[in-house]
């Protein structure tokens, strides 16, 4: 599996480094701007986060594209590897990308925030940003991304089972249908509300130039033993198994 | 080694005939080493099993012998080589005579024609 990861990494290395470098330069530009201009705090912060999210999208999209490529590439299909290893390598790639991106994001945000008026790190604690909460939220968002990736991989695998021209639409349709079905099922079984189970990103609300209290009531401290999380793990494993099965038996070129 | 192959006939027979000719004409002398299966297959771009079969047939006819650990060699028996020469001549003659008889020539005619033709050929050469 690590060998597969090595080649997935190499395949995307140019794009990955380019994305990180551009992100870094852009953050640097924002920092410089904010150091010289005042009154731009909220916008600059917003832009900074938007850039980070954009970079995350780009990398996530690239990972999905990589998996899609492997469905039809002969050099991959002929390899004596188990499908679960291929899936694992893609998930690992996404994990590494996300962690590295988060590091860059955290560093650039820290630097940026330090350039803002009326700001000090200790004030963060006052508004409820405990380290534990941050780490658990970040972990949960990494988990959610991986979960989403598992969904997308399954949809891609389903799409490749059909030998038609517009299989991409089948994949998208499959994704939407299964997601909706399972969401409805979860609600029925666990009585979950509409807010949980989504990407647990920290939300920041602004008004003016101040950073207000975080509305992190959803995911303050996520409980690994909670029913919802356990069911997510079960679902995750299920997704991977079905995807592996399809890859083994049903893919048509 | 250049052989013009006819894909309509078994290749191994064609190689055999070729090698026999080389031996008779002295280009492959008695006791000479012949190329290995691989070398020949590679050179002629033919299937190694075909070459193998050729060699097996030649061995069976005692034209070629295998010396353990050393390779394959043309037989050192000069008498054997003479035998092959006669055999090939005999085959040619049989076909020639049959062909001429089909055209309607009598035995005496055939002898006369051959005699005359050879005289002409020699005269042209000389």
């Amino acid at each position: 599996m690590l060998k597969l990861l090595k080649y997935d990494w190499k395949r995307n290395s140019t794009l990955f480094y380019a994305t990180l470098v551009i992100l870094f330069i852009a953050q640097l530009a924002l920092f410089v701007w904010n150091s010289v201009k005042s009154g731009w705090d909220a916008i600059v912060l917003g832009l900074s986060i938007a850039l980070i999210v954009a970079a995350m999208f780009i990398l996530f999209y690239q990972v999905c594209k990589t998996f899609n490529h492997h469905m039809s590439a002969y050099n991959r299909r002929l390899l004596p590897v188990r499908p679960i290893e291929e899936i694992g390598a893609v998930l690992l790639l996404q994990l590494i990308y996300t962690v590295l991106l988060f590091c860059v994001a955290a560093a650039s945000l820290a630097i940026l925030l330090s350039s803002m008026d009326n700001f000090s790190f200790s004030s963060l604690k006052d508004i409820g940003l405990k380290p534990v909460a941050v780490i658990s939220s970040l972990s949960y968002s990494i988990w959610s991304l991986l979960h989403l990736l598992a969904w997308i991989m399954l949809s891609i695998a389903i799409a490749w089972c059909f030998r038609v021209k517009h299989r991409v639409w089948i994949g998208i349709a499959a994704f939407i249908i299964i997601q909706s079905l399972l969401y409805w099922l979860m609600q029925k079984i666990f009585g979950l509300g509409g807010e949980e189970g989504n990407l647990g990103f920290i939300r920041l609300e602004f008004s003016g130039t101040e950073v207000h209290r975080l509305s992190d009531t959803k995911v303050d401290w996520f409980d690994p033993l909670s029913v919802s999380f356990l069911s997510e793990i079960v679902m995750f494993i299920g997704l991977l198994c079905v995807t592996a099965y399809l890859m083994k038996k049903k893919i048509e070129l | 080694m250049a052989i013009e192959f006819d894909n309509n006939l078994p290749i191994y027979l064609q190689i055999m005939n070729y090698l026999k000719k080389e031996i008779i004409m002295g280009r492959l002398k008695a006791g000479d080493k012949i190329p290995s299966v691989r070398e020949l297959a590679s050179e002629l771009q033919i299937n190694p099993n075909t070459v193998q079969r050729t060699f097996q047939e030649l061995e069976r006819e005692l034209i070629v012998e295998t010396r353990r650990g050393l390779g394959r060699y043309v037989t050192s028996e000069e008498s054997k080589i003479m035998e092959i020469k006669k055999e090939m001549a005999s085959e040619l003659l049989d076909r020639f005579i049959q062909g001429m008889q089909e055209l309607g020539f009598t035995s005496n005619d055939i002898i006369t024609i051959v005699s005359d033709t050879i005289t002409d050929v020699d005269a042209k050469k000389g």
Partner: protein
Amino acid sequence: MSQLLQFQHVVKKYGRKKALDDVTFQITSGKIIGLLGSNGSGKSTLMKLAAGVTQPSSGHISINGKSVGRETKLITSFMPDKPLTEDWMRVDDAIAFHRDFYTDFDEVKAKEMLDFMKLNARDRVTTLSKGMQERLQLSLVLSRDAKLYMLDEPIGGVDPVARGKILDAIVEYYNEDSSIIVSTHLLNDIERIFDEVILIREGKLLLQEDVESIRFNRGKSIDELFKEVYA
């Protein structure tokens, strides 16, 4: 000699169309086999199934007694009609890739073949001409010490010089423990390297015979036989 490759009543359907229709045959090791058929006859499908790229609709395929799957991929080396390299790769990346995943990959052999085929290690795969790409594919596939090699149309669309080199390579790398299946519809040069030929038409197996027997018994070249059958 053991059964290297065995197809038993294999059917492959795409929708309602049968790409392979009840195909049964076996191949022993130590042979070079020609898989003949016109375009669309099912040759590529047959090879893809044996290589494990796709699964049959029904029937069974085994290599050295094992069902086609991860284990058989370890001993099967397939050259398809599509590239075995990724666009970002250089020639040495492609070699490294195969070396990393296939324990029977012989790197020394690979480097020799690259020299033989006049390929440079640092060239980007995308900058290679079609002929050079074919040569690279062939090098990658034949540098493995596999039991079953399958080449899908290796000489189609390739210049005569490259064609000669490819035939040379096939004869060179032949050994008694393995077999090579070559699919083609161009017969003249290549028919002399075959032990046996298998003829396929419209997904059905028409004939499997020793090549010299065909010449001996029918007095025909394989090329002629092909033309007769597919006329």
